[in-house]
């Protein structure tokens, strides 16, 4: 199940600057696991214990991912002065 995944700017460091990558998976979490194989570390940023983190949203055309879908990852952002960051 190949889909296009829109990578948000804060995560593009992990995808070598790519804004859009190919991924595979029938569910969002399968897709995250697949992305993590290609781009190690991305899984931890987006999910925790097999669940999508609560400040990240996934947008798909429909609930189950279908071949050719475009999936967008949308994290909460806040510019500013906070220190320490992994993203």
């Amino acid at each position: 199940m190949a889909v296009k995944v829109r990578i948000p700017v804060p995560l593009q460091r992990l995808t070598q600057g790519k804004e859009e990558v190919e991924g595979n998976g029938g569910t969002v979490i399968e897709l995250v696991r697949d992305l993590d194989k290609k781009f190690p570390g991305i899984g931890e940023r987006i999910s925790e214990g097999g669940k999508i983190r609560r400040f990240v949203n996934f947008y798909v055309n429909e609930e189950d991912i279908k071949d050719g879908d475009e999936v967008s990852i949308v994290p909460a952002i806040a510019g500013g002065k906070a220190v320490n960051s992994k993203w």
Partner: protein
Amino acid sequence: MEFNEEQLQRYSRHIILPEVGGKGQKKIFESKVFIAGAGGLGCPVGYYLTAAGVGTIALMDNDAVELSNLQRQIAHSVKTLGINKADSAKKTFEALNPDVNVIPVKERLTNKNILELIKDYDVVVDGTDNFPTRYLINDACVMLKKPLVSGAILRFEGQVTTILPGDGPCYRCLFESPPPPGLVPSCQEAGVLGVLPGVIGALQATEVLKLILGKGKPLKGELLIYDALRTNFRKVKIPKNPDCPICGENPTIKELIDYTQEYCAI
């Protein structure tokens, strides 16, 4: 109140718009807007709302102007380096439009002071730079049923949404809880294109004026995402979460939470 000759001229391009007119301009003049943050977003929001003739603008910021701010924070200048940002912006806005009463609020928003600070305003604008304050503002606006125009920026990407408590989802319906400290980058580390807050701030100011005028369709129940590199605007739906901890059917947050300590401990 009646507009004098000078004001009629100043606001003439508004007044000739059928959607605004003299009546709408009067509404704008009688409105009160609270802007949290006089930085990248607060500067353009305040600048345009001042030009538009919003009668009362509170500008809240506790920081002083630094040289690294001037790449994007257009209400400040080399003349106001070291001065509190709310005071600095007040000078700029008053030079643009002396009709406007700009109230500098030189405090940090906390769970103790926020309700009192925003309660008399018609609309709240979030132009803050950190998650603790962002969630605090959302929760306080939900509690007071205060319209909130939220904007956020990072690197080349911006997000905008309008929250009308009781009539649509809130920020927690979208992102239920803040990321743990350190998991999301800040502008200081990640950088931000200087023009980006101008785009997002102008969108926020537009939303505020629409709310004041009661015209058009507010950006409610949707998140607008701007990608400056691709020149792409996308809207995604924000469903109202019936289990939302603050605006859901059985809210679990009954008092304002202070996340600051948790963040500062790291």
